[in-house]
């Protein structure tokens, strides 16, 4: 299931953590985008909206946008306003560029068009980052440093995952320069200082652009789930940078639950999600020995996925909060790992799903979910 271009643009934009996003949309689109973001970070309310009503649809939303720009500039102490025009203004043909050019503000403005009907969530993410690429400035290269591209501020476990990936890379002698899009404006601006861009699932267009403009090479990697996945991730990056680090991991925690893992060997499961899904499936079948029966991406037909899961032997479902219904219907547990998760919170930033620690946490979550699942008693 795909949220469409507007959601992708909003997620990329709101990842710049000290600027304000101004959504030029009716209230529902704004609410939808915000609600997924605020589940785990309820004070992060850095976004404004033109709140288009019927009047704006009939007469055009340009006046409302102009007023909102002026008011947002006045109300927020922000160096940058990221304006995202969604479906309604683009259907009626609001001239966003002309409005932005007609006002003089303290804040810098970057605007983008992201109608949900014009593309996928990933398209919105990619294009938003491209629009923001102009904010970057040539910086002196920091040796053995990388940018991580592909994150969104409302990814499940994002804080913990980023922290774990940074820790692992630091152990390998690699500094993380910028995490896109989960960073301050200053961090985003200085992204060209890295020696390498690491693209995790999305953000390739930005990486291409940075390669062209700053000569910065990039490496496309799977999201680092599991021990093998993480070792490969750290190893490939360190090889690319010529560091030659040999990743090491500790299997002690897994020994403690060996008997459970042994029992779970061959468990039929299904996985659905964005680019995280395939990496998760690799961990589940490659490392835990589960049988992945159905694997579905955002671009796949959701109804087909539901049908396939129903017709499979799936006993654990891995996905987002959207899969709650099907899990309930099939009376099987759901492990949430992928956007959007709005019925679980992630407060503790030391319990990741990515990296070595993430492999432990995930394994723990899976075993606990299975052991405590009421429906299986």
């Amino acid at each position: 299931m795909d949220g469409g271009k507007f959601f992708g643009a909003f997620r990329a934009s709101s990842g710049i953590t000290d600027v304000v996003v101004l959504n030029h949309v009716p209230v529902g689109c704004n609410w939808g985008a915000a609600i997924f973001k605020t589940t785990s970070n309820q004070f992060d309310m850095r976004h404004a909206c033109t709140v288009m009503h019927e009047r704006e649809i009939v007469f055009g939303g340009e006046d409302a946008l102009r007023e909102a720009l002026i008011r947002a500039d006045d109300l927020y102490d922000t160096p940058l306003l990221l304006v995202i025009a969604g479906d309604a203004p683009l259907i009626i043909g609001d001239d966003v560029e002309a409005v932005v050019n007609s006002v003089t503000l303290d804040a810098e403005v970057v605007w983008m068009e992201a109608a949900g009907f014009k593309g996928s969530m990933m398209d919105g993410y990619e294009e938003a980052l491209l629009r923001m690429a102009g904010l970057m400035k040539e910086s002196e290269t920091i040796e053995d440093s990388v940018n991580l591209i592909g994150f969104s501020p409302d990814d499940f476990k994002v804080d913990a995952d980023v922290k774990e990936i940074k820790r692992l890379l630091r152990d390998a002698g690699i500094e993380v320069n910028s995490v896109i899009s989960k960073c301050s404006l200053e961090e985003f601006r200085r992204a060209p200082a890295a020696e390498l861009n690491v693209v995790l699932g999305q953000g390739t267009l930005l990486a291409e652009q940075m390669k062209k403009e700053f000569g910065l090479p990039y490496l496309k990697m799977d999201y680092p789930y599991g021990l093998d996945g993480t070792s490969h991730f750290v190893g490939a990056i360190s090889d690319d940078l010529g560091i030659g680090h040999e990743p090491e991991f500790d299997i002690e925690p897994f020994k403690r639950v060996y008997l459970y893992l042994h029992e779970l060997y061959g468990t039929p499961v299904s996985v659905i999600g964005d680019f995280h899904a395939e990496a998760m499936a690799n961990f589940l079948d490659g490392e835990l020995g589960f049988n992945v029966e159905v694997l579905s991406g955002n671009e796949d037909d959701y109804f087909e996925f539901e049908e396939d899961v129903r017709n499979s032997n799936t006993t654990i479902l891995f996905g987002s909060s959207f899969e709650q219904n099907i899990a309930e219907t099939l009376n099987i547990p759901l492990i949430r790992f992928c956007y959007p998760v709005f019925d679980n919170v992630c407060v503790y930033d030391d319990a990741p799903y990515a990296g070595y620690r993430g492999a432990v946490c995930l394994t723990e979550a899976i075993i606990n979910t299975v052991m405590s699942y009421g429906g299986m008693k």
Partner: protein
Amino acid sequence: MRKFCMYGKGGIGKSTIVSNIAAALAENGDTIMVMGCDPKSDMTRNLIGKRIPTVLDVFRSKGPDTMEAEDVVFKGFGGVYCIEAGGPEPGVGCAGRGVITAVDMIDRLGVFNDIEPDTVIYDVLGDVVCGGFAMPLRQGLAEDVYIVTTCDPMAIYAANNICKGIQRFANRSAVTLGGIIYNGRSVVDEPSIIDGFAERLGTKVMGRVPMSLLVPRAELRRKTVIEYAPDSEIADTFRALATAICENKDRVMPEPLSDDELDGINEKIEVLLKEREETGSNPVGDV
């Protein structure tokens, strides 16, 4: 309550016909209401003598909660209640949504219940370019549609498109085609062509409005011909048309023509045009 709407290509004479029909019906002492659903907002000008604030003007300036019926309903010649939907400036916003909003506002203000008109006539922008302009075809707003056309290929094409719109909504509401109104004000004036067109649609020509210099004269003075020249032949034509429409019970679901059939009509018109060029004669009927 008799409710019908008038459709047709832009500039075809819909507003002239609607305002004159309304004035003619009002002469009988009936309570008549007309609503212009065209961003141009000038249908009621000939009934009132000036432009009136539109529903969307008031909606924009006062907002939906404080506007009142008195802000948007005005009495014109013969006591005809006049409403203009209005619309955005050219090039911005969404005129189609504007029609929906305006009709919705009129409904919310309870105008129909308060005034209880005997007849309501909607005058709708020519080509049904989007869902908004099909609004009067939906929700039982009108019982039947009358399409104004001249003997020009583009006008006939637009009329055929409107029939497609009627057909589309047939399954959802009870709107039907009441008939065709032939406006003789065109380069080629050949009533038999429109008779044939109507027949193929499965309907009939309700009336024929001949070209008359009295119409532009009256409009120059911002009047209907019913008011400006009540004893004229053209005024009687509008009276007869008004009666025919009000009493019409012959409503059909149109069978829109295929492109090939439309081409056939175009060829006939072309032949007439050539004849006119060759003979130097004017194929226009009685002027």
